[in-house]
């Protein structure tokens, strides 16, 4: 399902070139038809007639629309769309992306639905399809190329291939900077991503997860490589995995999460508790795989390797590709 494996750090500039190429290809194909036709994640060719009222489902899609200067066209978002908060404060919310209700979405009279692959439930998606509102499912791939593809497909859907190419170029530059930063890391640290700690049970990220990929992008190693997805982990396996750092997503303002990790009998035996290395970051920023992912990975890398901070310029968090 995922042909875009993360490319090797040696192929410099490859991502940029690939992104531009994708954008050009898409731009070329669109001139043939009268309107715009997009092949989405389902492999369906969707004809776009009027991209003026958009329901955006998925935080990364909303961010891309914002970076393309299309805030005004968004008539509704889902609960995972949390950035930028100033823009989204007044937008109607259709609920959580996997628990959508068809009436909530259709009630906003969208002329286009841009949804992340994995939006659901299936019954709702079937109703939305039957309602004949053009719906583009954007492929979700946790990789550098996946981010560039998302931008290209959103840009193409809206007939803004040039702006999208500008954005992919900038994001590609950031990812390139990040690659240079990773090359300077001598000894990668072992990071364990803890999704939750419930009654002493840790749920951690294995392979094929957004967390696994962001850890790799930040120049670290996922301490868990024996299973796929997010699963509850054995306490003894936490000790055996020898994590140097625990990474998690922020929940509220308190620091109790860190203390709960340090007090946990298994984490207490690792370097995490000894060196107090719990890190929590915003969920969408860290795991969204949108335009800000390079910046999130860089922030993480600098917290993991503080001596790298001086050596590298900051990645962009705001992209000015709205002209």
């Amino acid at each position, binding site marked *: 399902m995922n042909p875009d494996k993360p490319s090797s750090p040696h192929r410099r500039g490859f991502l940029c070139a690939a992104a531009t190429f994708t954008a050009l290809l898409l731009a070329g194909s669109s001139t043939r038809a009268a309107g715009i036709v997009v092949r989405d994640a389902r492999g369906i060719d969707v004809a776009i007639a009027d991209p003026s009222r958009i329901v955006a489902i998925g935080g990364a899609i909303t961010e891309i629309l914002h970076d393309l200067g299309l805030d005004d066209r968004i008539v509704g978002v889902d609960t995972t769309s949390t950035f930028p908060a100033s823009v989204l404060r007044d937008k109607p919310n259709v609920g959580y992306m996997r628990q959508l209700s068809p009436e909530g979405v259709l009630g906003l009279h969208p002329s286009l639905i841009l949804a992340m692959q994995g939006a659901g439930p299936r019954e709702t998606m079937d109703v939305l399809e039957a309602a004949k509102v053009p719906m583009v499912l954007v492929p979700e791939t946790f990789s550098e190329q996946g981010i560039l593809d998302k931008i290209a497909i959103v840009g193409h859907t809206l007939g803004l291939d040039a702006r999208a190419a500008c954005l992919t170029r900038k994001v590609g530059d950031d990812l390139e900077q990040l690659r240079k930063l990773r090359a300077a890391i001598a000894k990668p640290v072992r990071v364990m991503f803890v999704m*939750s700690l419930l009654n002493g049970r840790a749920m951690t990220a294995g392979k094929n997860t957004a967390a696994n990929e962001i850890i790799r992008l930040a120049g670290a190693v996922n301490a868990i490589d024996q299973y796929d997805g997010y699963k509850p982990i054995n306490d003894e396996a936490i000790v*055996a*995995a020898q994590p140097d750092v625990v990474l998690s997503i922020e929940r*509220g303002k308190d620091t109790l999460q860190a203390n709960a990790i340090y007090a946990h009998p298994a984490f207490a035996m690792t370097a995490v508790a000894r060196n107090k290395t719990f890190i929590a970051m915003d969920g969408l920023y860290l795991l969204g795989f949108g335009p800000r992912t390079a910046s999130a990975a860089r922030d993480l890398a600098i917290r993991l390797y503080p001596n790298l901070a001086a050596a590298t310029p900051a990645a962009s968090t705001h992209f000015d590709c709205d002209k």
Partner: protein
Amino acid sequence: MTAATSDARAQSTTIGRPLRPTAATALGVLAVVLGVISIFALTIGAAGIPLNRLGAALGITAGDATNALLARDHLVLWSIRIPRIAAAAAVGGLLATAGALMQGLFRNPLADPSLVGVASGGAFAAVATIVLIDSRFGEGLRFMQTELLPLGAFAGSLATTLVLYGIASRSGKTSVSLFLLAGLAIAAIANAGIGLLVFVADDRQLRDITFWLLGSLSGATWSKVTAALPVLLIGVAVALAIARGLDMMILGESEAFHGGVNVERLKRITIVLISAMTGAAVSICGVVSFVGIIVPHLLRLMIGPGHRLLLPASMLLGAALVVVADTLARTIVAPAEMPIGILTAAIGAPFFLVILLRQRTLIGP
């Protein structure tokens, strides 16, 4: 554990029935089984402590005190593996004894704390804390978020029992069948509530809820064990004190009353015991189904229905079953964890069926 233990008295009085071991033999055998299983459970785990280091790591035999590996093994054993085995045994004992009590009280072999809503009420409270702690309602409680879930589960079980008891009691008398039926309704309400919370939960909370509802002993600590142990010991002691009354209840409530049993007090005590024991188990490990129904049944087939033996035997066999299931849960998919509820059913149910098939002529048409 075999029924073939020689016992002249049983032989002479139960012609055509299976031979039953004496109380001392049965409890002795079960205790040995539990001991052997626990020692076996001690030797395996994801941290991979080799057998030749186990003695030293336990602190029994002398070892090189400066060895860093040995120090780690010692910690893994004493702060992760041993408390977890102890918690598994406690949970198994609690659930099986509560199940035996409930079946005795209702004179119904299908009664189980998870059936009458006591476990469902606890699960609902636990799921509510998972979801609401992240909302603005939960802000004031976040300072105690690690303790909130087990406390919530325990309180939920107790509250459900109180409501049920209130429904089933009228003018000082408790209707057992009303308790059972109302329990089914309460379980349905609790499950609807869980469904509603699942609906509003986000991805992370959904995963937490799913794994909570399937049960797991991961995260067991000494503090949880020491909290559950008094409930187990006091519970079993009280249960033994009312065992004779429960035996009389088998004949019927009025027969028990005429036999000199304070029936209403017996019912009240039993209900409190069941809810406290189930609540303690649910607060440690979530919902572990099937232990409460399978263990007492197995034992009734092997040692007979007398509660004075059935209750402590249930505690021992329940403990053994859950220790086995949990040992599998923490090792077969290591480094991940298998939910234990799957394993108790997968181990217990076929075993139960085999016993039923072998003895179905004895149970009657």
